[in-house]
């Protein structure tokens, strides 16, 4: 029983890391532009699918992964330039629909490029399971965990230690004030989109050996990432990371102990409960409404 529980924990933390990366991307974009980017899951899908396509074209895995991440970053920048910037000042609902439109568009492009089939990457370092205590861990899970910890620490250091990171943070606190002290808000906005697209793509490449990828793979991942960001208190990057891990754990435990068919329902029920009792998320601060 305890072994089984440990196994669920391992699965939960692996999936949770993925949600954490996607949620982090949501938080970055929200901070910079007050937009919830519903195309975030599509960055994950694009990262995975591009890497698979490049690998099949003969590129070695590390190169394919880097090129796929760069491609997703480019898509993120294009999205910002051609869909978000022209609609500046639009209402919440309008921006939600614009990003949903972008998500449908990107899914459509993936469908045209790679068809409806399912694809996978080979595991980065073999698929011989490692026994850890009573549970078995796939080497790929360790890759997911390790790279997630690395990326999250890098993002943290970026915000706390670098001038660029602090400038980006300043934009999220008060855009007008940031502009007044000489920060180029437009560049910061693009930086946020590029960064979050890159994070999403890397998440997609990490998970592609474990779960198969298809043109539709980004939909649920995007929603879970959004949930992670909301549970953590939207606009709080580290809250989103914690929310993602929590959500992954809960889902794995729910799937293992209650019913695997209802695992998505369990995850979203948890999100609803959090919102009902803590309407601004677990780690979000209360915002006073301006009348």
């Amino acid at each position, binding site marked *: 029983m305890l072994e089984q529980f440990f196994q669920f924990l391992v699965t939960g933390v692996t999936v949770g890391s993925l949600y954490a990366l996607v949620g982090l991307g949501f938080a970055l974009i*929200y901070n910079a532009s007050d937009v*919830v980017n519903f195309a975030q899951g599509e960055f994950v899908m694009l990262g995975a699918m591009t890497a698979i396509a490049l690998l099949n074209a003969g590129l070695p895995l590390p190169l394919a992964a880097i090129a796929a991440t760069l491609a997703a970053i480019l898509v993120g920048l294009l999205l910002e330039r051609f*869909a978000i910037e*022209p*609609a500046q000042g*639009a*209402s*919440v*609902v*309008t921006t*939600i*629909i*614009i990003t*949903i*439109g*972008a*998500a*449908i*568009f*990107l*899914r*459509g*492009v993936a*469908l*045209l490029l790679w068809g409806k089939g399912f694809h996978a990457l080979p595991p980065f370092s073999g698929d011989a399971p490692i026994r850890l205590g009573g549970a078995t861990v796939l080497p790929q899970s360790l890759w997911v965990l390790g790279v997630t910890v690395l990326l999250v620490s890098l993002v943290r250091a970026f915000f706390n230690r670098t001038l660029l990171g602090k400038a980006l943070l300043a934009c999220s606190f008060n855009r007008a004030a940031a502009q007044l002290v000489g920060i180029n808000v437009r560049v910061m906005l693009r930086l946020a989109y590029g960064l979050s697209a890159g994070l999403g793509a890397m998440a997609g490449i990490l998970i592609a050996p474990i779960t198969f990828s298809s043109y539709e793979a980004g*939909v649920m991942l995007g*929603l879970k990432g*959004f*949930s992670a960001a*909301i549970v953590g208190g*939207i606009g709080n990057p580290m809250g989103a990371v914690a929310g993602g891990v929590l959500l992954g754990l809960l889902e794995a435990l729910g799937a293992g102990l209650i*019913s695997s*068919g*209802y695992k*998505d*329902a369990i995850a*979203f*029920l948890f*999100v*609803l409960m959090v*919102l*009902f009792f803590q*309407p*601004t*998320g677990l780690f979000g601060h209360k915002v006073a*409404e301006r*009348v």
Partner: protein
Amino acid sequence: MRLVGFYVFAAVVALLPVLFPTNYFVTVVGASAGLHVILAVGLNLLMGYAGQISLGHAAFFGMGAYASAILTTRFGWYSLPALATGLLIAGTVAWLLARPILRLRGHYLAMATLGFGIIVHVIMVQATRWTGGPDGLAGVPPLNLLGWAVEGDLQWYGVIMAAMLLTVWLSLNLVDSQVGRALRAVHGSEFAAQMMGIDIGRAKTQVFVVSALFAAFAGSLFAHQQAFVSPDSFNLIVSVELVTMVVLGGMASTFGAACGAIALTLLHQGLVVFEDYEMVIHGALLMAVMIFLPQGLFVGLSQGTRRLWAMRPKS
């Protein structure tokens, strides 16, 4: 005078099948557009007038449809009591959910309604014993209106259009009633509305229940018209489409919502010929309309023509 637009709309709806009784686009696509209009007009009350987004409205649509399908096929009920039960279920769920969920704002509200929609969809897929699971339920009997069984495209067109005109008429009157004015006040500023003595919680609950009832009503008709229900008709994509219809047409306008519903239904029909390119075009159009006409087609275009009219050279 206030309802002049409604009479014109009703006349067009009534004339179309007389002029084109066998046209596929009028009878079949028209009936489908009619159901979408009911859904969009209901959702518009919540989104356009009360300013509350819902990304889970397909759940209420599905509750109506599954209530009708399950009660008529598995328990042999007549269609009308089954329809009434569907309304009762959707209304009760909406009423229970309204207070906790409508306390949330903006993106938090979007998340909560989205989660609600997904939970209901998962139940439809998983509760196989009742719902038939992912394969759905077939063999829903025709709608029986006090002995008259509705059959054939033309009869269905008539029934759905009558239902649609009823909901449009209800919506137009509701918006101009005291409740409607309270809702608009809530949209403008909740704080100010409260100061004027409006019970915000009650106003939001009322509109949420009404829009759930509209959706469940459309769902029951849909189940009988298709003679088949499956979870695919009530997933997140459908909820997003409904929101799109409201925004595409123009928020806070009953005819705007209707216009958006009709436009999107026609768009889907038109894009089918592009097959694999459908998604790319659909996504691109959605983005373009929202970027260039953020107020929506109906409102944006009618304002645009008014502006052009004002700019005409005066002789």
